[in-house]
């Protein structure tokens, strides 16, 4: 029994290293108010917003090209992943630059495509609807919540997703 317990215990041998506070000693509090620093950081990100509007158009063009390839492939798995990964990146950026709707639509598209081996015609059409929505957001542009137009756009997209999953 002792040998059995020893073997069982050895499977679960755990080494614990106490936490190091070295970084804490090297990063003392400054005299600067945190809220001021965060506001300044927010402004620095806002300053990048005009550049974002240029690079999101490039991302959209890349997404559209990937979608064309997806359609041409008839909804093949590798082509799905290509569209998913671009939408994933776009959804991770939009909200940082005053375009949260890009993040919302991108996340919706990624959720729809996730773990799909192939796409049939309905899913291809729904993907096209998501990309059209992104184009509208960028071209208008629909910043922040996009007002009533933004709300309507998201509501329509949700209907599309519900229909396709039913």
């Amino acid at each position: 029994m002792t040998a059995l317990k020893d073997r069982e215990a050895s499977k679960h041998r755990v080494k614990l290293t106490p936490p190091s506070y070295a970084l804490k000693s090297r990063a003392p509090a400054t005299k600067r108010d945190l809220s001021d620093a965060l506001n300044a950081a927010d402004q620095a990100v806002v300053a990048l917003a005009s550049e974002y509007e240029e690079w999101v158009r490039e991302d959209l063009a890349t997404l559209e090209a990937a979608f064309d390839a997806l359609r041409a492939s008839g909804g093949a798995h590798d082509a799905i992943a290509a569209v998913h990964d671009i939408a994933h990146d776009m959804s991770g950026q939009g909200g940082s630059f005053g375009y949260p709707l890009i993040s919302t639509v991108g996340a919706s598209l990624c959720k729809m495509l996730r773990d799909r081996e192939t796409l049939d015609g309905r899913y291809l059409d729904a993907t096209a609807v998501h990309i059209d929505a992104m184009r509208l957001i960028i071209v208008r542009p629909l910043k922040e919540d996009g007002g009533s137009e933004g709300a309507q756009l998201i509501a329509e997209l949700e209907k599309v997703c519900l229909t396709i999953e039913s």
Partner: protein
Amino acid sequence: MTKKLLDLSSISFLVVDDNDHMRRVIAQILRSLGAQTIKQAADGAEALAILGDWDADIIIADWLMTPLDGIEFTRMVRTAPDSRNPMAPIIMVTAYSESERITEARDAGITEMMVKPVSPQALYKRIEEVILRPRQFVRCDSFVGPDRHRRSDKNYHGPRRRSHDESENEPADAEPAE
């Protein structure tokens, strides 16, 4: 008392993301918060090469990257025999938000996780957590990384429910069932 900014001027950061716009945003936020040493890598493989001869105090890594994604990168930092600093804090910044993804990232050994879009507030909160409230480091067969519990309760005297803990009802010298 108004909360004060931590002095990040001597803290070195490695930002790992295959999207150069996102690297730029994160680096800009870090500079605005006082960081002066920031290196960047476009994927996990490049990041490992940088870490081969430079120690980052804090690593900020994306998940979805090729050829080496953030999860595999984290595992390499934690477990590779030639890893210079396996206990380096790793903040994963990702557009994934599903609970199973969070579990997967924790089990790979990340220190903190942050869902994109990135905001200075959310990023600073993770950095502050890593600096002010570091956790013990765990090494066992199935896991290497910061303790997945944020706090341990030394005063806990209740039942021990881990699979390898002895049953409360089973005498220590009982023979195993056939």
